Protein backbone atom coordinates (compact mmCIF):
# COMPACT_ATOMS: atom_id res chain seq x y z
CA UNK A 1 0.00 0.00 0.00
CA UNK A 2 1.72 3.14 -1.14
CA UNK A 3 1.06 6.49 0.47
CA UNK A 4 -0.34 7.88 -2.74
CA UNK A 5 -3.21 5.41 -3.01
CA UNK A 6 -6.46 6.91 -1.74
CA UNK A 7 -7.41 6.29 1.90
CA UNK A 8 -11.02 5.60 1.04
CA UNK A 9 -12.21 4.17 -2.24
CA UNK A 10 -15.95 4.24 -2.89
CA UNK A 11 -17.03 2.41 -6.00
CA UNK A 12 -20.50 2.32 -7.52
CA UNK A 13 -22.28 2.37 -4.15
CA UNK A 14 -26.05 1.97 -4.19
CA UNK A 15 -28.12 2.38 -1.08
CA UNK A 16 -31.81 2.74 -0.46
CA UNK A 17 -33.83 3.28 2.67
CA UNK A 18 -37.16 1.58 2.33
CA UNK A 19 -38.33 2.33 -1.18
CA UNK A 20 -36.42 5.60 -1.32
CA UNK A 21 -33.24 5.45 -3.36
CA UNK A 22 -30.52 7.43 -1.61
CA UNK A 23 -27.37 6.56 -3.55
CA UNK A 24 -27.44 5.51 -7.17
CA UNK A 25 -23.88 4.63 -8.08
CA UNK A 26 -21.50 6.85 -6.15
CA UNK A 27 -17.74 6.83 -6.84
CA UNK A 28 -15.30 8.72 -4.68
CA UNK A 29 -11.63 8.76 -3.76
CA UNK A 30 -10.59 10.34 -0.52
CA UNK A 31 -6.91 11.21 -0.42
CA UNK A 32 -4.61 10.83 2.53
CA UNK A 33 -3.64 13.91 4.47
CA UNK A 34 -6.24 16.09 2.76
CA UNK A 35 -9.46 17.71 3.89
CA UNK A 36 -12.17 16.40 1.61
CA UNK A 37 -15.56 18.02 1.70
CA UNK A 38 -18.80 16.39 0.68
CA UNK A 39 -21.45 18.98 0.06
CA UNK A 40 -24.98 18.86 -1.11
CA UNK A 41 -28.49 19.96 -0.21
CA UNK A 42 -30.10 18.64 2.96
CA UNK A 43 -31.62 15.21 2.64
CA UNK A 44 -29.21 13.90 0.02
CA UNK A 45 -27.80 11.31 2.39
CA UNK A 46 -24.47 12.87 3.25
CA UNK A 47 -24.66 11.54 6.81
CA UNK A 48 -25.70 8.18 5.39
CA UNK A 49 -22.48 8.17 3.39
CA UNK A 50 -20.44 8.60 6.57
CA UNK A 51 -22.34 5.74 8.21
CA UNK A 52 -21.62 3.59 5.18
CA UNK A 53 -17.93 4.37 5.47
CA UNK A 54 -18.03 3.58 9.18
CA UNK A 55 -19.70 0.26 8.48
CA UNK A 56 -22.87 1.10 10.43
CA UNK A 57 -24.91 0.72 7.27
CA UNK A 58 -24.44 -1.69 4.41
CA UNK A 59 -24.70 -0.70 0.73
CA UNK A 60 -27.01 -2.73 -1.49
CA UNK A 61 -24.39 -2.77 -4.24
CA UNK A 62 -20.84 -1.58 -4.76
CA UNK A 63 -18.06 -1.51 -2.21
CA UNK A 64 -16.19 0.82 0.11
CA UNK A 65 -12.51 0.33 0.90
CA UNK A 66 -10.90 2.06 3.82
CA UNK A 67 -7.11 1.78 4.00
CA UNK A 68 -7.26 -1.11 1.58
CA UNK A 69 -9.91 -3.08 3.46
CA UNK A 70 -13.44 -3.65 2.25
CA UNK A 71 -15.47 -2.33 5.19
CA UNK A 72 -18.48 -4.55 4.65
CA UNK A 73 -16.52 -7.75 4.21
CA UNK A 74 -14.81 -7.41 7.59
CA UNK A 75 -15.70 -9.57 10.53
CA UNK A 76 -17.06 -7.73 13.51
CA UNK A 77 -13.77 -7.80 15.37
CA UNK A 78 -11.79 -6.47 12.45
CA UNK A 79 -14.41 -3.81 11.82
CA UNK A 80 -14.01 -2.65 15.42
CA UNK A 81 -10.24 -2.59 14.95
CA UNK A 82 -10.70 -0.43 11.87
CA UNK A 83 -13.10 1.88 13.69
CA UNK A 84 -10.48 2.57 16.31
CA UNK A 85 -8.56 4.22 13.49
CA UNK A 86 -11.58 6.32 12.48
CA UNK A 87 -12.83 9.23 14.47
CA UNK A 88 -16.30 10.55 13.90
CA UNK A 89 -17.80 13.80 15.02
CA UNK A 90 -21.56 13.65 15.15
CA UNK A 91 -23.80 16.58 14.48
CA UNK A 92 -25.02 16.65 18.06
CA UNK A 93 -21.62 15.79 19.51
CA UNK A 94 -23.05 12.53 20.85
CA UNK A 95 -21.34 13.00 24.20
CA UNK A 96 -22.34 10.60 26.94
CA UNK A 97 -24.62 12.75 29.05
CA UNK A 98 -24.15 10.99 32.36
CA UNK A 99 -20.40 11.57 32.72
CA UNK A 100 -18.17 14.66 32.77
CA UNK A 101 -16.22 16.17 29.90
CA UNK A 102 -13.05 14.59 31.24
CA UNK A 103 -14.61 11.14 31.44
CA UNK A 104 -16.06 11.54 27.97
CA UNK A 105 -12.65 12.15 26.46
CA UNK A 106 -11.17 9.40 28.60
CA UNK A 107 -13.93 6.98 27.55
CA UNK A 108 -12.30 5.52 24.41
CA UNK A 109 -8.94 5.35 26.19
CA UNK A 110 -10.38 3.47 29.13
CA UNK A 111 -12.38 1.16 26.86
CA UNK A 112 -9.55 0.27 24.54
CA UNK A 113 -6.34 0.59 26.48
CA UNK A 114 -5.02 -0.53 29.83
CA UNK A 115 -3.12 2.67 30.43
CA UNK A 116 -2.63 3.72 34.04
CA UNK A 117 -4.92 6.48 35.26
CA UNK A 118 -2.09 9.04 35.45
CA UNK A 119 -1.27 8.47 31.78
CA UNK A 120 -4.93 8.76 30.82
CA UNK A 121 -5.07 12.05 32.69
CA UNK A 122 -2.15 13.37 30.70
CA UNK A 123 -3.59 12.27 27.40
CA UNK A 124 -7.04 13.66 28.14
CA UNK A 125 -5.68 17.02 29.21
CA UNK A 126 -3.54 17.11 26.10
CA UNK A 127 -6.49 16.46 23.84
CA UNK A 128 -8.68 18.93 25.71
CA UNK A 129 -5.94 21.50 25.49
CA UNK A 130 -5.77 20.99 21.75
CA UNK A 131 -9.42 22.05 21.44
CA UNK A 132 -9.01 24.79 24.03
CA UNK A 133 -11.28 23.28 26.67
CA UNK A 134 -8.84 22.08 29.30
CA UNK A 135 -10.62 24.31 31.80
CA UNK A 136 -14.01 22.73 31.13
CA UNK A 137 -12.99 19.21 32.15
CA UNK A 138 -15.28 18.99 35.18
CA UNK A 139 -18.41 20.24 33.45
CA UNK A 140 -21.24 17.93 32.51
CA UNK A 141 -22.19 17.82 28.80
CA UNK A 142 -25.50 19.52 29.57
CA UNK A 143 -23.59 22.58 30.79
CA UNK A 144 -21.77 23.06 27.50
CA UNK A 145 -22.84 25.24 24.58
CA UNK A 146 -23.34 23.52 21.25
CA UNK A 147 -19.97 24.66 19.96
CA UNK A 148 -18.16 23.53 23.09
CA UNK A 149 -19.88 20.15 22.98
CA UNK A 150 -18.61 19.69 19.44
CA UNK A 151 -15.10 20.60 20.47
CA UNK A 152 -15.22 18.10 23.34
CA UNK A 153 -16.48 15.51 20.89
CA UNK A 154 -13.56 16.42 18.66
CA UNK A 155 -11.13 15.92 21.53
CA UNK A 156 -12.74 12.52 22.10
CA UNK A 157 -12.53 11.65 18.41
CA UNK A 158 -8.77 12.28 18.39
CA UNK A 159 -8.20 10.52 21.72
CA UNK A 160 -7.06 7.29 20.09
CA UNK A 161 -4.94 9.12 17.48
CA UNK A 162 -6.97 7.96 14.49
CA UNK A 163 -5.82 8.14 10.89
CA UNK A 164 -8.95 9.94 9.80
CA UNK A 165 -11.85 11.95 11.17
CA UNK A 166 -15.30 12.26 9.71
CA UNK A 167 -17.17 15.44 10.51
CA UNK A 168 -20.94 15.32 10.22
CA UNK A 169 -22.25 18.86 9.66
CA UNK A 170 -19.74 20.46 12.03
CA UNK A 171 -20.90 24.03 11.35
CA UNK A 172 -24.67 23.68 11.56
CA UNK A 173 -26.30 25.96 14.08
CA UNK A 174 -23.11 27.60 15.33
CA UNK A 175 -22.59 31.25 16.07
CA UNK A 176 -19.89 32.95 13.98
CA UNK A 177 -17.24 32.66 16.70
CA UNK A 178 -17.63 28.95 17.38
CA UNK A 179 -17.91 28.44 13.63
CA UNK A 180 -14.56 30.18 13.17
CA UNK A 181 -13.03 28.12 15.96
CA UNK A 182 -14.25 24.87 14.42
CA UNK A 183 -13.10 25.80 10.92
CA UNK A 184 -9.67 26.57 12.26
CA UNK A 185 -9.54 23.44 14.43
CA UNK A 186 -10.41 21.10 11.58
CA UNK A 187 -7.65 22.46 9.35
CA UNK A 188 -5.16 22.68 12.21
CA UNK A 189 -5.73 19.17 13.52
CA UNK A 190 -5.63 17.77 10.02
CA UNK A 191 -2.21 19.25 9.35
CA UNK A 192 -0.71 18.95 12.81
CA UNK A 193 -1.70 15.33 13.41
CA UNK A 194 -1.29 14.19 9.82
CA UNK A 195 -4.92 13.12 9.62
CA UNK A 196 -7.23 12.77 6.71
CA UNK A 197 -10.51 14.58 7.17
CA UNK A 198 -13.89 14.21 5.59
CA UNK A 199 -16.26 17.12 6.16
CA UNK A 200 -19.89 16.69 5.35
CA UNK A 201 -21.60 20.04 5.21
CA UNK A 202 -23.82 22.41 3.35
CA UNK A 203 -22.12 25.54 4.63
CA UNK A 204 -20.39 26.41 1.38
CA UNK A 205 -18.23 29.33 2.45
CA UNK A 206 -16.74 27.78 5.60
CA UNK A 207 -16.22 24.43 3.98
CA UNK A 208 -14.55 25.80 0.88
CA UNK A 209 -12.19 27.78 3.08
CA UNK A 210 -10.58 24.63 4.46
CA UNK A 211 -11.29 21.91 1.91
CA UNK A 212 -8.64 20.65 -0.47
CA UNK A 213 -11.13 18.81 -2.60
CA UNK A 214 -14.90 18.98 -2.83
CA UNK A 215 -17.54 16.52 -3.97
CA UNK A 216 -20.99 17.86 -4.73
CA UNK A 217 -23.73 15.31 -4.16
CA UNK A 218 -27.31 15.55 -5.29
CA UNK A 219 -30.06 13.14 -6.24
CA UNK A 220 -27.99 10.12 -5.23
CA UNK A 221 -25.13 10.93 -7.57
CA UNK A 222 -21.92 12.93 -7.59
CA UNK A 223 -22.77 16.03 -9.55
CA UNK A 224 -19.34 17.49 -9.71
CA UNK A 225 -15.98 17.33 -8.01
CA UNK A 226 -12.79 19.32 -7.92
CA UNK A 227 -10.92 21.84 -5.83
CA UNK A 228 -12.99 24.69 -4.41
CA UNK A 229 -11.53 27.05 -6.97
CA UNK A 230 -12.46 24.75 -9.84
CA UNK A 231 -16.01 24.43 -8.57
CA UNK A 232 -16.43 28.16 -8.17
CA UNK A 233 -15.72 28.50 -11.89
CA UNK A 234 -17.85 25.56 -12.88
CA UNK A 235 -20.19 26.16 -15.75
CA UNK A 236 -22.79 23.73 -14.42
CA UNK A 237 -25.92 25.64 -13.54
CA UNK A 238 -26.66 23.38 -10.61
CA UNK A 239 -23.21 23.85 -9.07
CA UNK A 240 -23.49 27.58 -9.48
CA UNK A 241 -26.86 27.62 -7.77
CA UNK A 242 -25.58 25.59 -4.87
CA UNK A 243 -22.25 27.35 -4.44
CA UNK A 244 -23.84 30.80 -4.66
CA UNK A 245 -26.87 29.88 -2.67
CA UNK A 246 -29.46 31.14 -5.15
CA UNK A 247 -33.12 30.58 -4.34
CA UNK A 248 -34.22 29.42 -7.75
CA UNK A 249 -32.47 27.54 -10.48
CA UNK A 250 -32.25 23.94 -11.56
CA UNK A 251 -33.38 23.11 -8.04
CA UNK A 252 -36.83 24.71 -8.10
CA UNK A 253 -38.01 26.93 -5.28
CA UNK A 254 -41.38 25.19 -5.25
CA UNK A 255 -41.92 21.65 -4.13
CA UNK A 256 -43.65 19.75 -6.94
CA UNK A 257 -47.31 20.77 -6.85
CA UNK A 258 -50.35 21.35 -9.00
CA UNK A 259 -50.58 24.54 -10.98
CA UNK A 260 -50.98 27.40 -8.53
CA UNK A 261 -54.11 28.99 -10.00
CA UNK A 262 -55.92 25.69 -10.28
CA UNK A 263 -54.91 24.74 -6.77
CA UNK A 264 -56.32 27.95 -5.35
CA UNK A 265 -59.58 27.49 -7.18
CA UNK A 266 -59.82 23.97 -5.89
CA UNK A 267 -59.97 22.47 -9.38
CA UNK A 268 -58.85 18.94 -9.96
CA UNK A 269 -55.64 18.89 -11.94
Amino acid at each position, binding site marked *: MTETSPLIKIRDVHFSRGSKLIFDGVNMDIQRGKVTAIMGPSGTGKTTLL*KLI*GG*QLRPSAGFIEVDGENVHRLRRKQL*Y*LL*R*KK*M*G*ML*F*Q*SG*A*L*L*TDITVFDNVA*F*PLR*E*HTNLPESMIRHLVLMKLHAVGLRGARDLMPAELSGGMARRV*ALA*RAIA*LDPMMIMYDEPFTGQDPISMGVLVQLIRLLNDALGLSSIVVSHDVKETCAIADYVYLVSGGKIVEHGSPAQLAESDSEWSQQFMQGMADGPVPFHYAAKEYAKDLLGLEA
Partner: protein
Amino acid sequence: MLSYFQRLGATSLGMFERLGRGSVFFVNILLSIPSVIVRPRLLIAQIYFVGVLSFSLIVISGLFVGMVIALQGFYTLSDFGAEGMLGVMVAASLIRELGPVVSALLFAGRAGSALTAEIGLMKATEQLSGMEMMAVDPVARIMAPRFLAGLISMPILATLFSAVGVMGGYFIGVGLLGIDEGGYWSQMQAKIDFSQDVVNGLIKSVIFGWVVTWIAVFEGHDAIPTSEGVSRATTRTVVHSAFAILLLDFILTALMFGDI
Protein backbone atom coordinates in the same frame (compact mmCIF):
# COMPACT_ATOMS: atom_id res chain seq x y z
CA MET B 1 -63.42 -6.92 4.52
CA LEU B 2 -60.35 -7.75 2.50
CA SER B 3 -58.50 -4.73 3.87
CA TYR B 4 -59.41 -5.85 7.37
CA PHE B 5 -57.70 -9.18 6.82
CA GLN B 6 -54.78 -7.43 5.20
CA ARG B 7 -54.35 -5.24 8.23
CA LEU B 8 -54.67 -8.23 10.55
CA GLY B 9 -52.00 -10.02 8.55
CA ALA B 10 -49.73 -7.00 8.54
CA THR B 11 -50.15 -6.54 12.29
CA SER B 12 -49.35 -10.12 13.12
CA LEU B 13 -46.40 -10.14 10.71
CA GLY B 14 -45.15 -7.03 12.47
CA MET B 15 -45.55 -8.74 15.83
CA PHE B 16 -43.53 -11.73 14.74
CA GLU B 17 -40.92 -9.46 13.24
CA ARG B 18 -40.53 -7.63 16.55
CA LEU B 19 -40.42 -10.88 18.46
CA GLY B 20 -37.73 -12.13 16.12
CA ARG B 21 -35.69 -8.97 16.46
CA GLY B 22 -36.19 -9.07 20.21
CA SER B 23 -34.92 -12.64 20.37
CA VAL B 24 -31.84 -11.88 18.30
CA PHE B 25 -31.21 -8.89 20.54
CA PHE B 26 -31.58 -11.10 23.61
CA VAL B 27 -29.03 -13.57 22.26
CA ASN B 28 -26.64 -10.65 21.65
CA ILE B 29 -27.09 -9.58 25.25
CA LEU B 30 -26.41 -13.10 26.48
CA LEU B 31 -23.25 -13.24 24.40
CA SER B 32 -21.97 -10.01 25.93
CA ILE B 33 -22.65 -10.98 29.53
CA PRO B 34 -19.09 -12.31 30.02
CA SER B 35 -17.76 -8.84 29.21
CA VAL B 36 -19.93 -7.42 32.01
CA ILE B 37 -18.73 -9.92 34.54
CA VAL B 38 -15.16 -8.85 33.88
CA ARG B 39 -16.13 -5.29 34.76
CA PRO B 40 -18.38 -5.53 37.82
CA ARG B 41 -18.30 -1.77 38.38
CA LEU B 42 -20.63 -1.20 35.44
CA LEU B 43 -23.00 -3.75 36.93
CA ILE B 44 -22.88 -2.23 40.40
CA ALA B 45 -23.75 1.20 39.06
CA GLN B 46 -26.76 -0.27 37.25
CA ILE B 47 -27.94 -2.27 40.27
CA TYR B 48 -27.96 1.07 42.03
CA PHE B 49 -30.14 2.71 39.38
CA VAL B 50 -32.40 -0.25 38.79
CA GLY B 51 -32.60 -1.83 42.23
CA VAL B 52 -31.61 0.51 45.03
CA LEU B 53 -33.67 3.39 43.66
CA SER B 54 -36.74 1.14 43.53
CA PHE B 55 -36.18 0.06 47.12
CA SER B 56 -38.36 2.58 48.95
CA LEU B 57 -41.24 2.17 46.50
CA ILE B 58 -41.18 -1.60 46.91
CA VAL B 59 -40.85 -1.56 50.71
CA ILE B 60 -43.67 0.93 51.24
CA SER B 61 -45.96 -0.84 48.79
CA GLY B 62 -45.17 -4.20 50.35
CA LEU B 63 -45.96 -2.91 53.81
CA PHE B 64 -49.33 -1.57 52.78
CA VAL B 65 -50.28 -4.57 50.68
CA GLY B 66 -49.54 -6.84 53.67
CA MET B 67 -51.59 -4.62 55.94
CA VAL B 68 -54.55 -4.60 53.56
CA ILE B 69 -54.53 -8.37 53.16
CA ALA B 70 -54.51 -8.74 56.94
CA LEU B 71 -57.42 -6.35 57.32
CA GLN B 72 -59.51 -7.92 54.57
CA GLY B 73 -58.55 -11.44 55.51
CA PHE B 74 -59.46 -10.90 59.14
CA TYR B 75 -63.09 -10.04 58.40
CA THR B 76 -63.52 -12.98 56.07
CA LEU B 77 -61.74 -15.47 58.30
CA SER B 78 -63.54 -14.33 61.46
CA ASP B 79 -66.84 -15.43 59.85
CA PHE B 80 -65.50 -18.97 60.05
CA GLY B 81 -63.80 -18.51 63.36
CA ALA B 82 -60.49 -19.10 61.69
CA GLU B 83 -58.66 -15.89 62.59
CA GLY B 84 -55.67 -17.99 63.53
CA MET B 85 -55.14 -18.68 59.84
CA LEU B 86 -54.52 -15.00 59.12
CA GLY B 87 -50.75 -15.39 59.12
CA VAL B 88 -51.00 -18.22 56.61
CA MET B 89 -53.28 -16.21 54.39
CA VAL B 90 -51.03 -13.14 54.40
CA ALA B 91 -47.84 -15.10 53.87
CA ALA B 92 -49.22 -17.44 51.22
CA SER B 93 -50.76 -14.71 49.11
CA LEU B 94 -47.63 -12.57 49.39
CA ILE B 95 -45.03 -15.23 48.80
CA ARG B 96 -46.83 -17.08 46.05
CA GLU B 97 -48.48 -14.27 44.14
CA LEU B 98 -48.43 -10.69 45.24
CA GLY B 99 -44.74 -10.45 46.11
CA PRO B 100 -43.49 -11.46 42.68
CA VAL B 101 -46.38 -10.00 40.66
CA VAL B 102 -46.94 -6.64 42.32
CA SER B 103 -43.26 -5.92 42.74
CA ALA B 104 -42.69 -6.83 39.08
CA LEU B 105 -45.49 -4.46 38.02
CA LEU B 106 -44.04 -1.68 40.16
CA PHE B 107 -40.57 -2.51 38.87
CA ALA B 108 -41.78 -2.22 35.27
CA GLY B 109 -43.25 1.18 36.04
CA ARG B 110 -40.31 2.48 38.03
CA ALA B 111 -37.19 0.91 36.55
CA GLY B 112 -38.39 -0.51 33.23
CA SER B 113 -39.73 2.77 31.92
CA ALA B 114 -36.60 4.59 33.08
CA LEU B 115 -34.40 2.07 31.27
CA THR B 116 -36.34 2.43 28.03
CA ALA B 117 -36.32 6.21 28.21
CA GLU B 118 -32.62 6.33 29.00
CA ILE B 119 -31.57 4.01 26.20
CA GLY B 120 -34.05 5.56 23.76
CA LEU B 121 -32.66 9.02 24.47
CA MET B 122 -29.12 7.77 24.11
CA LYS B 123 -30.14 6.49 20.72
CA ALA B 124 -31.91 9.74 19.79
CA THR B 125 -28.87 11.81 20.74
CA GLU B 126 -26.59 9.54 18.69
CA GLN B 127 -24.74 8.37 21.80
CA LEU B 128 -25.19 4.74 20.79
CA SER B 129 -24.05 5.45 17.24
CA GLY B 130 -21.13 7.40 18.63
CA MET B 131 -20.12 4.47 20.76
CA GLU B 132 -20.26 2.14 17.81
CA MET B 133 -17.98 4.48 15.91
CA MET B 134 -15.60 4.47 18.86
CA ALA B 135 -15.49 0.70 18.42
CA VAL B 136 -17.39 0.18 21.67
CA ASP B 137 -20.28 -2.25 21.39
CA PRO B 138 -23.31 -0.57 22.97
CA VAL B 139 -24.95 -3.93 23.62
CA ALA B 140 -22.03 -4.96 25.80
CA ARG B 141 -21.40 -1.55 27.33
CA ILE B 142 -24.95 -0.28 27.86
CA MET B 143 -27.59 -2.99 27.46
CA ALA B 144 -26.00 -6.05 29.04
CA PRO B 145 -25.16 -4.44 32.42
CA ARG B 146 -28.68 -3.05 32.65
CA PHE B 147 -30.23 -6.37 31.77
CA LEU B 148 -28.13 -8.23 34.31
CA ALA B 149 -28.85 -5.61 36.97
CA GLY B 150 -32.59 -6.09 36.43
CA LEU B 151 -32.23 -9.84 36.63
CA ILE B 152 -30.41 -9.55 39.96
CA SER B 153 -32.53 -6.78 41.48
CA MET B 154 -35.97 -8.22 40.77
CA PRO B 155 -35.80 -11.30 43.05
CA ILE B 156 -34.27 -9.16 45.81
CA LEU B 157 -37.09 -6.64 45.49
CA ALA B 158 -39.76 -9.33 45.41
CA THR B 159 -38.31 -11.02 48.49
CA LEU B 160 -38.20 -7.71 50.32
CA PHE B 161 -41.78 -7.02 49.27
CA SER B 162 -42.99 -10.34 50.70
CA ALA B 163 -40.96 -10.04 53.90
CA VAL B 164 -42.14 -6.51 54.59
CA GLY B 165 -45.69 -7.53 53.71
CA VAL B 166 -45.63 -10.33 56.28
CA MET B 167 -44.44 -7.80 58.85
CA GLY B 168 -47.24 -5.44 57.81
CA GLY B 169 -49.76 -8.24 58.25
CA TYR B 170 -48.28 -8.88 61.68
CA PHE B 171 -48.70 -5.24 62.74
CA ILE B 172 -52.35 -5.26 61.72
CA GLY B 173 -53.25 -8.80 62.76
CA VAL B 174 -51.43 -9.03 66.06
CA GLY B 175 -51.02 -5.36 66.90
CA LEU B 176 -54.38 -3.99 65.89
CA LEU B 177 -56.84 -6.86 65.65
CA GLY B 178 -55.49 -8.79 68.61
CA ILE B 179 -54.74 -12.15 67.04
CA ASP B 180 -52.57 -14.45 69.12
CA GLU B 181 -48.95 -13.73 68.24
CA GLY B 182 -47.77 -17.33 68.55
CA GLY B 183 -50.62 -18.48 66.33
CA TYR B 184 -49.73 -15.99 63.63
CA TRP B 185 -46.20 -17.31 63.25
CA SER B 186 -46.71 -21.01 64.04
CA GLN B 187 -49.64 -21.47 61.68
CA MET B 188 -47.62 -19.73 59.03
CA GLN B 189 -44.61 -21.93 59.60
CA ALA B 190 -46.76 -25.04 59.54
CA LYS B 191 -48.46 -24.20 56.26
CA ILE B 192 -45.88 -22.32 54.19
CA ASP B 193 -43.54 -24.75 52.56
CA PHE B 194 -40.04 -23.66 51.69
CA SER B 195 -39.58 -25.52 48.42
CA GLN B 196 -43.23 -25.27 47.36
CA ASP B 197 -43.87 -21.65 48.18
CA VAL B 198 -40.71 -19.67 48.84
CA VAL B 199 -38.62 -21.20 46.07
CA ASN B 200 -41.45 -21.07 43.54
CA GLY B 201 -42.08 -17.43 44.39
CA LEU B 202 -38.40 -16.75 43.87
CA ILE B 203 -38.42 -18.52 40.50
CA LYS B 204 -41.39 -16.41 39.46
CA SER B 205 -39.62 -13.20 40.36
CA VAL B 206 -36.48 -14.19 38.44
CA ILE B 207 -38.60 -14.89 35.36
CA PHE B 208 -40.47 -11.60 35.75
CA GLY B 209 -37.20 -9.73 36.19
CA TRP B 210 -35.89 -11.34 33.03
CA VAL B 211 -38.95 -10.50 30.95
CA VAL B 212 -39.37 -6.92 32.22
CA THR B 213 -35.74 -5.91 31.69
CA TRP B 214 -35.65 -7.67 28.36
CA ILE B 215 -38.70 -5.73 27.17
CA ALA B 216 -37.41 -2.45 28.64
CA VAL B 217 -33.92 -2.67 27.15
CA PHE B 218 -35.20 -3.91 23.80
CA GLU B 219 -37.83 -1.18 23.51
CA GLY B 220 -35.19 1.43 24.23
CA HIS B 221 -32.82 -0.06 21.69
CA ASP B 222 -35.59 -0.39 19.12
CA ALA B 223 -37.17 3.02 19.74
CA ILE B 224 -37.61 5.43 16.86
CA PRO B 225 -35.00 8.06 17.75
CA THR B 226 -37.34 11.02 18.15
CA SER B 227 -38.99 12.38 21.26
CA GLU B 228 -42.30 10.89 20.17
CA GLY B 229 -40.70 7.54 19.43
CA VAL B 230 -39.06 7.39 22.84
CA SER B 231 -42.26 8.30 24.66
CA ARG B 232 -44.13 5.60 22.74
CA ALA B 233 -41.44 3.05 23.51
CA THR B 234 -41.66 3.91 27.20
CA THR B 235 -45.42 3.39 27.19
CA ARG B 236 -45.00 0.12 25.35
CA THR B 237 -42.51 -1.08 27.95
CA VAL B 238 -44.99 -0.60 30.78
CA VAL B 239 -47.96 -2.03 28.89
CA HIS B 240 -46.16 -5.02 27.43
CA SER B 241 -44.43 -5.77 30.71
CA ALA B 242 -47.74 -5.76 32.57
CA PHE B 243 -49.29 -8.11 30.01
CA ALA B 244 -46.29 -10.39 30.04
CA ILE B 245 -46.15 -10.50 33.84
CA LEU B 246 -49.81 -11.38 34.27
CA LEU B 247 -49.83 -13.92 31.46
CA LEU B 248 -46.65 -15.60 32.65
CA ASP B 249 -47.93 -15.55 36.21
CA PHE B 250 -50.97 -17.55 35.18
CA ILE B 251 -48.87 -20.07 33.28
CA LEU B 252 -46.31 -20.40 36.07
CA THR B 253 -48.98 -20.72 38.75
CA ALA B 254 -50.70 -23.44 36.76
CA LEU B 255 -47.40 -25.28 36.37
CA MET B 256 -46.23 -24.84 39.95
CA PHE B 257 -49.30 -25.03 42.11
CA GLY B 258 -52.05 -26.35 39.87
CA ASP B 259 -52.69 -29.91 38.82
CA ILE B 260 -53.18 -29.00 35.18
